[in-house]
């Protein structure tokens, strides 16, 4: 049992929730950048929420199914067409489980909202885990499918298949990606090193996402903060969502494949609950930041987890 990537897409790779317990070895967690969309896709095909999926970025693949199964696509809204060049072509929706048969071809067309979609399968992907995870570490070249993104012609093997009941997630529960975001943050290690003027400049402005953004980090364009070049920091562990301010004065947000030890001062850190938004950012999207307390951040996280749990018991 397998699927064939007739076209691989821009950056299509196997991801799960991430590889944990290895950051002290310089190995970042990797994993789906939008973990919420990933979990939703898995739920739709009745798989454990942390099952490996295919992460699709901006330009999607064309996939041929060589055996029957159920699939689901969540996250960014792509035009999805089944059997495009045939008389029985049809547009299929995201956020719903779909049955495919042998010979079906799924084409990802234009992306309308967001940046990354997650394709989950009812069948089990037949790949070995590396360090307890199926996530691909693109920089170091291991994990997932041969340690890399898919190329044209690749075949992804599956083992057992199963019939699953049809599921859908109602639109009131699926996020929109409208390209204008408010990211909540809490203090980070060097927050206190930034002057009131610098903090004011940072929190007041609307930044734009740079095209130079990827799974390692999100770069922002906007009004540069004036950086005191003599500011020495002790490099320490770099957590996801850290908003670093390098010499350029423009923020660099650390993401799933970011370095494990940072060298730039951090003005704030995006709250855990808002990290999945990083996976949906694309060039020219607008971003603002809001500082909240750690207590509020935890309340937000709990509330969000409760909401998601309700969706998964529907």
């Amino acid at each position, binding site marked *: 049992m397998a699927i064939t990537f007739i076209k691989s897409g821009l950056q299509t790779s196997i991801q799960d929730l991430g590889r944990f*317990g290895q950051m002290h070895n*310089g190995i970042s967690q990797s994993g789906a950048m939008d973990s919420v969309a990933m979990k939703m896709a898995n739920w739709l095909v009745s798989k454990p929420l942390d099952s490996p999926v295919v992460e699709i970025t901006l330009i999607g693949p064309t996939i041929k199914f060589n055996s029957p199964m159920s699939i689901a696509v969540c996250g960014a809204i792509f035009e999805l067409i089944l059997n495009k060049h045939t008389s029985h072509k049809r547009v299929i929706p995201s956020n719903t489980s779909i049955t495919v048969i042998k010979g079906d071809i799924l084409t990802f067309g234009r992306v309308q909202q967001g940046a990354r979609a997650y394709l989950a399968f009812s069948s089990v992907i037949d790949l070995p885990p590396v360090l307890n995870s199926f996530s691909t570490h693109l920089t*170091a*070249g291991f994990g997932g499918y041969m340690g890399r993104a898919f190329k044209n012609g690749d075949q992804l093997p599956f083992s057992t298949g199963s019939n699953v009941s049809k599921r859908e997630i109602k639109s009131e529960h699926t996020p929109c990606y409208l390209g204008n975001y408010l990211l909540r943050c809490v203090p980070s290690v060097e927050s206190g090193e930034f002057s009131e003027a610098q903090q004011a400049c940072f929190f007041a402005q609307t930044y734009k996402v740079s095209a130079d953004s990827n799974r390692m980090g999100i770069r922002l364009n906007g009004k540069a903060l004036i950086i005191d070049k003599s500011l020495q920091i*002790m490099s320490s562990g770099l957590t996801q*969502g850290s908003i670093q301010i390098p010499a350029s004065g423009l923020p660099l947000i650390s993401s799933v494949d970011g370095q494990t030890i940072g060298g730039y001062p951090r003005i704030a850190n995006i*709250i855990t609950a808002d990290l999945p938004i990083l996976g949906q950012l694309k060039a020219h999207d607008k971003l603002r930041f809001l500082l909240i307390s750690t*207590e509020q951040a935890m309340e937000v996280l709990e509330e969000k987890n409760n909401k998601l749990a309700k969706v998964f018991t529907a």
Partner: protein
Amino acid sequence: MSKSINKPAYRLVDNGDSAITVLFEQAISEALSVKIIQLAGLLQKAFPVLIVELIPAYQSLTIMYRTSGLEECTSIKNKLLKHIKNCLVKVETVETVETDELMAPLHNRKVIEIPVCYQTKYAPDLPFIAEQAGLTTTEVIKRHTTPKYLVHMLGFLPGFLYLGGLDKQLHCARKAIPALRIQAGSVAIGGSQTGVYPVNSPGGWHIIGRTPVSLFNVNNQLENSFKNTLANNKEESQDMFIASPLDRVQFVSITEKEFDAIIALNGEINGGSN
């Protein structure tokens, strides 16, 4: 009469909403790295499920923990704080309290030799370093291969070793414009540090040589390698990484022929996707 205000030996800061960082006042040193690695080992043993990551650095330890809400988070932070205080007391008084638990990271420390070819082909920035230092390239190589560098921690990239002990004369500020792609195995100097790029990567350090040996081999993974490097049971069998924190590393100069022979034996280094 002047009053001296003692700075606290360490302080705890939030590192996002699911991590804290212990920042030490002490200068970068072997003693401090020993303390940090011991603390990490003790915490990992005490909270095997709660703690997701422990990231040692030159003067800090970052602890990422699992939490899903406010009540749990507050309780976890309090537990950690208490435990960190207790562990540090233990670690400070190590001369009088020598338990296996504390001494474990100090057992099995190795000196690892890393062969490096410093020939022109692999050392584009060696002449620049020599010029900056006012030395011949031969003298630079001698000064680079003499020390037994201490591994303070791993980080930045898989298997990248942060080494302490670079000869002061070889210090050289990073390039203003980093190179887009440095070949895996490149041996470099950046600021006051020296190290080896374990995978292909952009970087701003000066390249003075190349090693044919792989620093990171994910196929040699052990079960629970997390435990094996930070806590007690570090085994002799092949590790994923060429060295661990508190090991020492010495560079050994080899010829191009020897370099090619090692590659022929082991294969090319897997440099990753870059």
